[in-house]
């Protein structure tokens, strides 16, 4: 089975570490960063099949990062993990995000969504 590379952008250390460990245990190659600037540096080192983005981040927010990433890496899957409340303006869905999951997402739902995103991106790359 192919190992998919994931970058997690989450400023809360406890959540970032828990996500990294959980996804590693599920067989993903995972890196964790805490901001859009750190994500840029991580992707300059090595590409990724998919991103897990928090919405509320210090500096650049998750939607702004998603917009930039979609333009730079059209095949990279983008999953947004957000605690935003339904009906609050900050939680409005954006087309550059492939999948939204509400915090606290169930572990299996997160794994399944990421695997599907990575497989879809890989299939697209193979067809081209």
């Amino acid at each position, binding site marked *: 089975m192919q190992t998919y590379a994931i970058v997690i952008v989450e400023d*809360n250390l406890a959540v970032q570490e828990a996500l990294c460990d959980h996804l590693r245990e599920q067989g993903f190659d995972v890196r964790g960063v805490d901001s859009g600037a750190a994500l840029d540096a991580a992707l300059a080192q090595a590409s990724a099949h998919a991103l897990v983005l928090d919405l509320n981040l210090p500096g650049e*927010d998750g939607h702004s990062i998603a917009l930039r990433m979609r333009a730079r890496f059209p095949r990279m899957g983008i999953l947004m993990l957000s605690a935003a409340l339904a009906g609050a303006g900050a939680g409005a869905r954006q087309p550059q995000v492939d999948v939204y999951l509400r915090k606290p997402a169930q*572990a299996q739902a997160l794994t399944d969504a990421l695997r599907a995103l990575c497989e879809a991106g890989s299939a697209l790359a193979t067809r081209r």
Partner: protein
Amino acid sequence: MPPTVRSERHPEPAIPAQQHLMDLLVHEIKTPLTVIALGSKALAQATNPAQSAVWQQRLQQAVADIVDILDSCNQVSRFEGGTLSPEPSVFAPESLLSPLIASLCDAAHAPPERIVVRYDQAQDASLPWTGSTAYLQIILNNLLGNALKYAPPESPVALQIGRLPWADQPAQLQFAVRSAIGPAGAPDPALVFERHYRAPAASRFSGTGLGLWLSQQLALAMGSRIHMGQEGGQLVFWFTLTEDLAAAR
């Protein structure tokens, strides 16, 4: 601090303070709940003791974070609703501090000796004091809890207490909490007691930005004020309470 970049959104309507508090509670509580959602499955699947121990500690910390968030929002709600009683009584500082420090260190997975209490005079620990137990407890809980959370791991947190006996005036108790500045950086002195303020990198840890604001409101209600400064590379919070002899009658 770099400028904040926000994607385009609809303008946010003004919302009542109580609704804002409820939104904050619901939003903030989802962060530790995320750790619990991941950890409960990971713990069930863990195959080695070291892996289990890491997840167990994460789950315990997430529960402690939820308790902190709930307590903080509840205290603010009761304070603003006028039902947070000062519970005036006569007590010895030592009797208040011992259980408080044990509870804080337990929640932070720190040994109790990480908080070092120093009295200016040995007898200051046991001399009776008249004032608000509940308000003082909330203030010290916030100041010491923040120091444990934001100072570099395992660095000591010092609480210094001094009593100033005046011949013809009520006595005063001075408190100072000192800790090293951690990776979240030092708070902005102009904003640190503002409601919802959090230091630039404080979002690395769970929190509401309400604790220091509430502590300052409670200090003001007791006729005092909390100050923050830096001293020898350490962050220092200090305040002075005047004994309220009428309070416990």
